[in-house]
């Protein structure tokens, strides 16, 4: 009776992270969970795609074949997105933004293939947010120097400095929570539909998969990358 009424609908409702196996490190029990497995699968797919793309580009032909065409289209679109958002600073960030775009996109749409999306684990999205945070502040110190950072911290008056610090810390938290909660809500909705309506859940959940996995996942990927680019080009400034 320890379960809530939501979970009394059946043991089929399952969207939690499960441990696969555990081992002991320095007296701590460390679990390898389904998130790790899913991240590894996504990484394998991306690495395989990358190797195939590398081979195709090395043997590039004058008139591109189908696969080469697809690669060129992807790279062109990603570079165009970075360049239109960041302007002349874009060239340095094409690689990073392209990488996290492809990683988050593949993670989000891996729900289509029956995996639990790795981005529905806060342990995956928080590092992405922290990476953005590091990038913002590295570029801030690099381009605005210490004096500029201090001036930005005491923006209207020095008494506002604590509020500005809280605002800075809120950036990675809100970025990662937004991605996490969006993907998690999709996962929970699909688990509820398959668990509670398992008798009549035939074919029509495909439409919901298109919304929750493809549409929502692509939008959130785009938003994460756009916000990262906006914050970083803000940190770089005009000079």
């Amino acid at each position, binding site marked *: 009776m320890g379960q*809530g009424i*939501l979970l009394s609908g059946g043991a089929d409702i399952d969207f939690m992270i499960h441990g696969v196996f555990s081992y002991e490190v320095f007296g701590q029990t460390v679990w390898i969970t389904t998130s790790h497995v899913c991240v590894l699968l996504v990484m394998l797919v991306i690495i395989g795609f990358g190797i195939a793309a590398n081979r195709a580009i090395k043997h590039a032909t004058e008139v591109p074949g189908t696969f080469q065409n697809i690669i060129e289209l992807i790279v062109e679109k990603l570079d165009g997105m970075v360049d239109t958002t960041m302007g002349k600073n874009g060239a340095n960030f094409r690689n990073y933004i392209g990488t996290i775009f492809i990683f988050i996109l593949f993670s989000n749409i891996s729900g289509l293939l029956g995996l639990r999306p790795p981005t529905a684990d806060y342990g995956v999205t928080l590092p992405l947010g922290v990476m953005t945070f590091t990038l913002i502040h590295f570029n801030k110190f690099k381009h605005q120097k210490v004096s500029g950072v201090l001036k930005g911290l005491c923006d209207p008056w020095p008494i506002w400095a604590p509020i500005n610090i809280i605002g800075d810390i809120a950036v990675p938290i809100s970025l990662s*929570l937004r991605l996490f*909660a969006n993907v998690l*809500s999709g996962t929970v909705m699909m688990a509820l539909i398959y668990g509670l309506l398992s008798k009549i859940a035939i074919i029509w959940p495909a439409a919901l998969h298109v919304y929750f996995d493809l549409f929502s996942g692509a939008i*959130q990927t*785009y938003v994460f990358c756009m916000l990262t680019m906006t914050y970083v080009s803000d940190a770089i400034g005009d000079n």
Partner: protein
Amino acid sequence: MNEIFNTNFILGCSAIGAGLAVIAGIGPGVGQGIAAGFAASAVGRNPGAKSDITSTMLLGQAVAETTGLYGLLIAMLLLFVKPLI
């Protein structure tokens, strides 16, 4: 006194709290609707800028969605992580 505050009572209160927490979804709904309405009128005025307007609208809507998602997260925590037990 301890009779009342048993596990099931706390679970029931958590469920009520989760229900109250997702009321936070009202705000983003209204906000996203306003953003979409203004985007529609902007496209009506300047159909050439449709792709720019759409991407700006989606970005703004996704940012506005955040507060609703915080409410959803609180509901999830109350229902499945059960911090009060």
